[in-house]
């Protein structure tokens, strides 16, 4: 039977390293995805992901379960992303490695997909990355947490520490900017 996060946390606090490994396996990918979509760099996203788990491990004895473990992890990761953005003093840049991009593209091809469709899809992804990278941090975070991590409005509000209506406003504004920018780039509806 699969243990819940809370059970694994309890066992980790009691000194069972395997339980923490299980938590890492369970949450590594979402945390990495959050970091990547927030700061846009693979290497740095990996560092943020590792640092998140390191900090979580150190702070685990102090975790009292007031929030869900995942929310707690998200908060650590978001704080680290915010630190990264401030430290780098720049907007996130989504890197697209030039030498492997087409390989990944070819690997990602659906069997029935033509080269043209493939390129169109990749162009679309790049456009999304570019537009998202230009969004203000609060709007981007709200979209990432809602769109890709499926958090509720209330969870996002708790996580980023703002009122519920602010979360919705940020989402609306962010999505509207994305829609406008995509329409400019010929990717509208």
């Amino acid at each position: 039977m699969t243990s819940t996060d809370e059970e694994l946390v309890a066992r980790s606090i009691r000194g069972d390293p395997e339980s923490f490994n299980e938590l890492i396996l369970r949450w590594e990918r979402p945390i990495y995805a959050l970091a990547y979509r927030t700061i846009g760099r693979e290497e740095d996203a990996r560092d943020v992901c590792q640092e998140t788990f390191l900090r979580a491990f150190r702070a685990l004895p102090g975790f009292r379960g007031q929030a869900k473990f995942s929310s707690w992890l998200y908060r650590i990761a978001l704080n680290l992303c915010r630190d990264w953005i401030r430290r780098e003093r720049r907007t996130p840049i989504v890197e697209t490695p030039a030498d492997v991009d087409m390989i990944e593209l070819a690997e990602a091809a659906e069997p029935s997909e033509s080269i043209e469709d493939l390129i169109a899809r990749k162009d679309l992804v790049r456009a999304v990355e570019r537009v998202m990278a230009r969004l203000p941090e609060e709007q981007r975070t709200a979209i990432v947490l809602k769109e890709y991590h499926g958090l509720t409005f209330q969870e996002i509000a708790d996580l980023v520490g703002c009122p519920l209506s602010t979360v919705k406003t940020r989402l609306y504004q962010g999505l509207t900017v994305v829609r406008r920018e995509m329409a400019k780039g010929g990717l509208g509806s």
Partner: protein
Amino acid sequence: MNTTCTYRGNREDLLVASLYGDVDPSDRAAFEEHIAACAACRRELDELGVVRARLGHWTPPEPARAFASAPAPPVGRRGVWAALGAIPAWAQVAAALLCAGVAAGVANLDVKYDRNGLSVRTGWSAPARGGAPAAASQVPVAAQHETPWRADLAALERQLRTEMRAFPAQATADAARRDLADGETLRRVRALIDQSERKQQKELALRIAEVATDVRAQRVADLRNIDRNLNVIQSNTGVDMLRLYRMTNDLAVRVSQTK
């Protein structure tokens, strides 16, 4: 867009909530009624839905995981087993025989087959022999006559001991050399494979890029052709229309003149 919308509540919040299927139950009925009547809100919801679909294409790259290779067995153990494995079979058999012989010798084994049948016993458990010490001193000589293989066994033992003394050092050195050579070979093979993969990836990327460029160039050329042809058709149509108009006009003039 929302200039034509007359909704009095918090429209943006409700649009977002509706977009994610999370409208508060207390607002749901009123907002759904409004949506049914408001084309602007419906259009905006549709467009935001398209944005969500576009966003869904954005998948982060796979996180690079630490490459876990099978741990190498400890060098000491591997060395011992490798050295044992390197000993020829004949030497292993001889060593086994030697061990058996030595064990028999140490145990002072006495094997007899006489009228009483086969009897095996160690010298330590042999009954005390009666007689003078002189008689006792003659026993080894008699024993040597009775067991002529003892001399051969002793010679074999000496030879094997000499060889075995020289062998472990050589075997260990050989094994270490082989390990080093294996490691080096493995490294080279891996480097070659990596190099080959990188080359293939670059070639594939180049090919795909070429194909993509060709497709785009062809598409642009086709679009230009279509555009040019359309212009020609439009121009021809315009000329024909003008001619038709003049003919109609002339006809009308003639008809009026004949009247």
